[in-house]
């Protein structure tokens, strides 16, 4: 499927390309394919490509002539084949949903009239898609949360949410990669490191990958956490062929 794209000048060295304003797997796929085509076009003035839900930002070394570059990008987009297969990786992320970590699980259970077991099941059964990484280093924007678990952000954000906290905010869920203030409802904690400045790349997951949460007991959580600290833990993952 091809989309009606909008090209806008962002500043003299940046252009933003916009897809329809919604969160959609086909848009994500189209962005990934377009991005790959732009990279393979090999224009050395195109320095950096960054994407989010429905936009692709292109940053240039030297200032660009907007109209000419827009035409060049349109020509590249016309060569994107929607038939291209796009493989990704599914990552199995252990999460401990036990009371000690699940600060807001009881609150969600009451508000949604769902048992805690049902919430954990709904949260860990789904396969989530990584749309992009933003907000904090290593914070994955995930799509696919079960509608039954949607719950508004807290009206007053917590000043400190722990590293590894698994949380729900509106129709999104995610893991805090580092300690941070935040307004999402915390339902568990993952021992996995989502960002490591010493690794290249610093994140194991990338845009287009998939994530599944696997409930673990606190003793397993502790065991994995010490393996992660010793750099001996390997995250379970598998290739997903398109």
């Amino acid at each position, binding site marked *: 499927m091809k989309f009606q794209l909008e090209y*806008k*000048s*962002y*500043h*003299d060295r*940046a252009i*933003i390309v*916009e897809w329809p*304003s*919604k*969160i959609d797997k086909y848009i994500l796929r189209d962005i990934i394919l377009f991005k790959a085509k732009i990279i393979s076009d090999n224009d050395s003035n195109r*320095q*950096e*490509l*960054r*994407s*989010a*839900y*429905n*936009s692709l*930002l292109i*940053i240039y070394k030297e200032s660009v002539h907007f109209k000419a570059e827009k035409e060049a990008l349109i020509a590249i987009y016309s060569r994107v084949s929607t038939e291209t297969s796009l493989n990704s990786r599914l990552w199995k992320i252990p999460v401990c949903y036990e009371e000690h970590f699940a600060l807001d699980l009881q609150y969600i259970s009451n508000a949604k009239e769902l048992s805690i077991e049902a919430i954990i099941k709904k949260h860990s059964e789904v396969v989530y898609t990584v749309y*992009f*990484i*933003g*907000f*904090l*280093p*290593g*914070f994955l*924007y995930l799509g696919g949360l079960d509608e039954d678990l949607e719950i508004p952000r807290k009206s007053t954000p917590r000043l400190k949410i722990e590293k590894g906290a698994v949380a729900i905010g509106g129709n999104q869920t995610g893991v805090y*990669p*580092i300690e941070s203030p935040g307004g999402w409802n915390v339902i568990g904690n993952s021992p996995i490191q989502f*960002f490591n*400045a*010493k690794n*290249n*790349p*610093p*994140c194991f997951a*990338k*845009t287009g990958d998939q994530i599944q949460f696997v409930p673990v007991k606190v003793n397993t959580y502790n065991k994995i956490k010490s393996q992660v600290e010793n750099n001996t833990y390997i995250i379970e993952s598998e290739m997903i062929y398109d």
Partner: protein
Amino acid sequence: MIKVLQSGFYSTIQDIGRFGYQDYGVPYSGVMDKQAATIANTLLGNHENNAVLEITMTGPKLKFECDTLICLSGASMNPQINKNYIPNNKIFNVKKDDVLSFGKLDSGFRCYLAVLGGFNVEMVMNSRSMYQNITQQSSIKKGDQLAIKNSTFNYKMHHSNLRVNTSYIDNLTLEVYRGPEFKYLSVSNQKKILSSRFTISKYNNRMAYQLEEVLANNLDSIITAPVLPGTIQLTPSGKLIILMKDCQTTGGYPRVLQLSESAIHSLAQKITGDKLQFKCL
């Protein structure tokens, strides 16, 4: 080495930034006023990307543990070597045991200290710019030993007579481009934003500058999208937030304007209560 005797208000080591990691959510960081840092580095014959000390509002007290050459640029903070005043934008030969200190802030907000060969602190993801959770240290502290090169040997005075224009520091008019969501503003807000005088609020730091004045806002939030240093966001409550070098990589507020690169340099020298206005390029 340079020993930190007193840390001052807030000083960090910065180069021009950490590029190529924004798709992992890593901010660019880097010097807020690149013009000042470049002047100081250039006068010394350094590379533009050599790391400098970015000094905010109140300067530190530093003791040199080797001979070197230094240059200061940006804000005027009455710098002194062993209590003798030295000017900005001039090379100064310091000796082992010399002490650099600062006085009252006279103009601007951020002063840059460049040393010959640059500060040689930890490099993380191709940059020495300090940032919490990326580098081990997020600002300099009393007692720190900052690594520098110990040599004045290769220095040639190529640029020592460079004429330096510092008028941008007091510039009140910031050049902007229309941002991706500018066209969705009401016509009256479009006019207002490009003709009003705004005031810098006390909420200003390396991440963002918030402005005091409120616009009657009719714009909804957007689906989370990329943002850049210099992007001006309009919040649902009508406040304008100008993102700076340590900003997040993505945001959900409408991006109404974008500062030019030189406007970012000027803004980096602004302090709480300063006035400014925008001029469309």
